[in-house]
C-alpha cells in the first residue's frame, strides 16, 4: 500500500446506520404520494396545482430563511414535506393564494423563527393550516364533490363530517346514527362504493356504499386526506422502514375510536356504546393526521411511553372538538394542542435508567 494512504480517524462507533434525516423526510414524502395521486384523480388537476404551489412556496420560504442564516437546508427535504402536507390539507377549490400564505407562514414563522429544522415546537404544516383556516373560513371550506360520485348534481358538497354536524344542529338527537343520517339526507355515493357494498352484502356482510366510499376516498374533503386506504398503505410502509413507530398512530386512533364508540351515540339519543366508529375514523382527517402529522418527530415526544400519552391526548382532544365543539373536524387543532404539551411530557416521562432504583422525577 502507498504511504500516502490516510484513514479517517474518529470516535466510535465506526459504522453508522444508513438512515439520514433527509432520507427520512423523502421517505415520508414518498409514502404520501399515492394518497395525493388519488386526491388529484377524484378532485381534478387543479388539486395538483394546489399541491405544487404549496411545495414551491414552502421551498422558496425555506431557501430564503436559510439564506438569511447563511445555511443551506433545502436538500434536507423537510420543507418539501411541509409543503406537501399543506397541499394535502387544502380543500380542492381553495383560492390559490391561501396555500401559498399557509406555506410561507409555516416555514418562515413557525419553523425558522425558532431556528429551523428541529427547533420548532409546533408542527409547521398544521400551524400553517390553522393560520389560514381561521383567516379565510369560506376559502377553507371550498369542498368539491369527487368525480367518482354517480349522481353529482352540483360541484360542491359538504364533507360527510360537515353534513352530519350541520344536520345535527338542525335536528338535534333523534334515533339513528351518523352513517344512517347520511342515507336519510340522500348523501351521494359512488358506483365503486355501491359495487363494493353489494359484493360484501352478497357475502352476507352488511356494508353500505358509504363505508366503502369513506375508506377508499370517494368523499369530499381535503385533497390528501380522503383516501384512508392509500394513507394506511403509506403508513405501513413507513412502519416497515421503521421511520414511524406504532405508538403514536395506534394510541391516537384507538383512544379516539374508543371514545367515539362510547359516547357518540348519545348525540342521537341512543345511549352509550353505540357510536359510529367507522364513520369517524375514516370520514375525515384522522388517518392523515395520526400517521403523518402527529408523528412529526420534531414535535412529538421522544420516549415510547411519552408517545402513547401524546397519542391518547390527541385522540381525546379530537373526540372532544369533533363531537362537542362547533367544528366538524378536530384533528389539526388536537395535534397542535398536544404539540404544546410535548416538552412537559418529555420532562416527566423519562425512561428508568439501568441499575437505578428510583428515577429522580423531572431532574434538571
Amino acid at each position, binding site marked *: 500500500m502507498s504511504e500516502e494512504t490516510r484513514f479517517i480517524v474518529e470516535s*466510535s*462507533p465506526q459504522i*453508522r446506520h444508513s438512515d*439520514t434525516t433527509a432520507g427520512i423526510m423523502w421517505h415520508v414524502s414518498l409514502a404520501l404520494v399515492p394518497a395525493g395521486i388519488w386526491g388529484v384523480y377524484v378532485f381534478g388537476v387543479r388539486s395538483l396545482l394546489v399541491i405544487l404551489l404549496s411545495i414551491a412556496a414552502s421551498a422558496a420560504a425555506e431557501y430564503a430563511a436559510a439564506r438569511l442564516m447563511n445555511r443551506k437546508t433545502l436538500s434536507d427535504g423537510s420543507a418539501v414535506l411541509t409543503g406537501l402536507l399543506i397541499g394535502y390539507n387544502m380543500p380542492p377549490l381553495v383560492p390559490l393564494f391561501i396555500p401559498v400564505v399557509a406555506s410561507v407562514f409555516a416555514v418562515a414563522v413557525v419553523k425558522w423563527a425558532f431556528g429551523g*429544522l428541529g427547533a420548532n415546537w409546533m408542527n409547521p404544516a398544521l400551524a400553517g393550516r390553522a393560520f389560514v383556516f381561521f383567516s379565510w373560513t369560506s376559502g377553507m371550506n371550498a369542498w368539491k364533490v369527487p368525480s367518482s360520485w354517480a349522481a353529482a348534481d352540483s360541484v360542491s358538497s359538504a364533507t360527510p363530517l360537515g353534513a352530519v354536524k350541520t344536520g345535527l344542529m338542525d335536528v338535534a338527537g333523534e334515533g339513528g346514527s351518523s352513517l344512517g343520517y347520511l342515507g336519510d339526507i340522500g348523501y351521494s355515493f359512488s358506483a365503486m362504493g355501491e359495487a363494493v357494498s353489494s359484493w360484501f352484502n352478497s357475502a352476507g356482510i352488511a356494508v353500505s356504499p358509504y363505508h366503502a366510499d369513506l375508506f377508499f376516498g370517494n368523499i369530499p374533503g381535503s385533497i390528501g386526506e380522503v383516501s384512508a386506504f392509500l394513507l394506511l398503505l403509506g403508513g405501513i410502509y413507513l412502519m416497515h422502514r421503521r421511520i414511524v413507530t406504532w405508538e403514536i398512530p395506534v394510541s391516537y386512533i384507538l383512544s379516539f375510536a374508543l371514545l367515539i364508540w362510547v359516547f357518540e351515540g348519545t348525540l342521537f339519543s341512543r345511549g352509550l356504546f353505540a357510536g359510529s366508529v367507522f364513520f369517524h375514523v375514516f370520514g375525515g382527517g384522522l388517518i392523515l393526521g395520526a400517521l403523518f402529522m402527529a408523528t412529526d418527530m420534531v414535535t412529538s415526544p421522544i420516549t415510547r411511553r411519552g408517545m402513547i400519552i401524546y397519542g391518547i391526548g390527541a385522540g381525546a382532544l379530537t373526540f372532544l372538538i369533533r363531537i362537542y365543539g362547533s367544528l366538524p373536524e378536530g384533528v389539526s387543532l388536537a395535534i397542535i394542542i398536544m404539540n404544546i404539551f410535548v416538552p412537559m411530557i418529555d420532562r416527566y416521562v423519562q425512561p428508568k435508567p*439501568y441499575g437505578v432504583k428510583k428515577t429522580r422525577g423531572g*431532574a434538571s
Partner: protein
Amino acid sequence: MLKQRTFRRGGIHPPDKKRLTEGQPISLCPDPEVITVPFSQHLGTPASAAVSKGDVVNAGDIIAEASGFISAHIHTPLGGEVKEIRNIFIPAGFSVPAAVIAVDPGSSFQESVLTEGEAEKLSPEELLDIVKKCGIAGLGGAAFPAHVKFKVPKGKHADVLIINGVECEPYLNADNRLMIEHAGELLEGISYIQRMTGAKSVIIGIEANKPDAMKAVEGAAAAQGYTYAVQPLKVMYPQGDEKQLIEAVTGKEVPSGGLPIDVGTVVTNVGTAFAVFEAVRRKKPLFERIVTVSGEAVSRPMNIRAKVGTPFRMLIEQAGGFSEEPCKVVAGGPMMGFAVYDLDTPVMKGTSGILALTRKQVQEGVETPCISCGRCVRSCPMGLQPTRLYHLIDRGLYQEAKDAWLLDCKECGCCSYSCPAKIHLVQGMRLGKRMLRNLSS
C-alpha cells in the same frame, strides 16, 4: 437447549458480518523482525519500564512491571535486543511508552508443562498469583487486569461466574473460533477462574448466531464432566456488554456506579479463560491473542493468532492485503473499536480485531440538527436519553448531565449508530465525562 435470553432496554441490530470469517480456522502469524510492545495494554495505570535501550531480553520476560493496584505486567513475546523505548500512539488515542525490540530469530517462548493433577493442587491464592505474574488482562476489549477482577473483595461473594462468549460486535470471530477449536482448554481455564472467585455456578453465555461454538463447548463440557450451563442469547448488540449480559443471564441489574460483584456475579471473556489455562498449565504469560482480520476492504478475511507488538500491517498482508482502499482501519469491533492512524499500530492484549472498512460500511455523513426522533433513546441499553445528555453537554451543563446519569454511559455506540442526523453522541458523552473529571480534580 436453554431458551434464548436477552436484556430489557434498547439494543440495535447492525449487520453482523460474521460470515466473512466464522468458518476460517485460526492461522498463525509469522514472527515479525521488529516488535513494538506498548507498556499500557490494559485499563488502569501503565506498567513501568523494566528494561532499557540495549538490553537483551528473552521471550516471555517481563519488560514492564505493573504499577499501582489496577495494572498488569507486560511481557515480550519474542527475544531480542531492545532498540529503544519511545512513545507511540495506541488506538485508544493516547501516547504511551513502548519497547521497540529487534527480534532474534528462533527466540520463541519455551513452554513448561504443569500436569492437570499438579494444577488441581493449586490454591486460589497461588492461581491469582499466576494470573498476576502472567499479566493477564481481559481479552474482551476493555482489558481490565484479571487478577484484580478475580479477587473477590472481602464481604462480597460470587454466586455466578458468567463466561462471556457472546462476541456481539459485528465482524469479530476471535472468541467464536476459540470456542470451536479450544473448547477443552477453555473449560479447564474456567475451572481455575471458578476456584479463584469461589463462584458457586458457571454460566457460559453465547449469542445464538454461534451454534458451532455452543455445540463445541457443550460437547467438551460433557466429555470432561463439567456442569457448566451454556446459555444461548438473542442476537442483539450490545448483548456481550458486561451489564447487559448480567441482566440477560440473571435478570439482575448492577447498581449505578457499582460492580458486577455487587449482584454476586463475576463476568469474564472466553479469551481470558483460555489465557488463564495457558498461564496455569503452560506457564505462558499473555503475549499473544486471536485477532479477526476482516472487513470489506480485506482480500481474504481470516482469524490469526498474533503476538503482541506485531504491526497491523503484517496481519493485513497475511490476509492478502487490501482489496480496495479502506477508508477506515479499526482496532477492535466496529461499534466500540478505535480507528487507527496507520498500519504500524501494534497488536495489543485487547485487540480483538483489525477491520478495514469501506465508505459504504462507514456511512459517514454531515451532521444535521437533531429532529428528536428518539432513536437514540429507544436504542440505549442503559435507559439513558443520549440526545438530552448531548444537549446538556453541548451547553456546558456537565453537572446536570451527571444528574441525568451521564456516568452510566459505557459508550457502546447504539445511539450514534442509530442517529439519522449523524450526531456524534458518543463523542459528546466522552467529552462530558472528561470535563466532569477535570472539574472534580
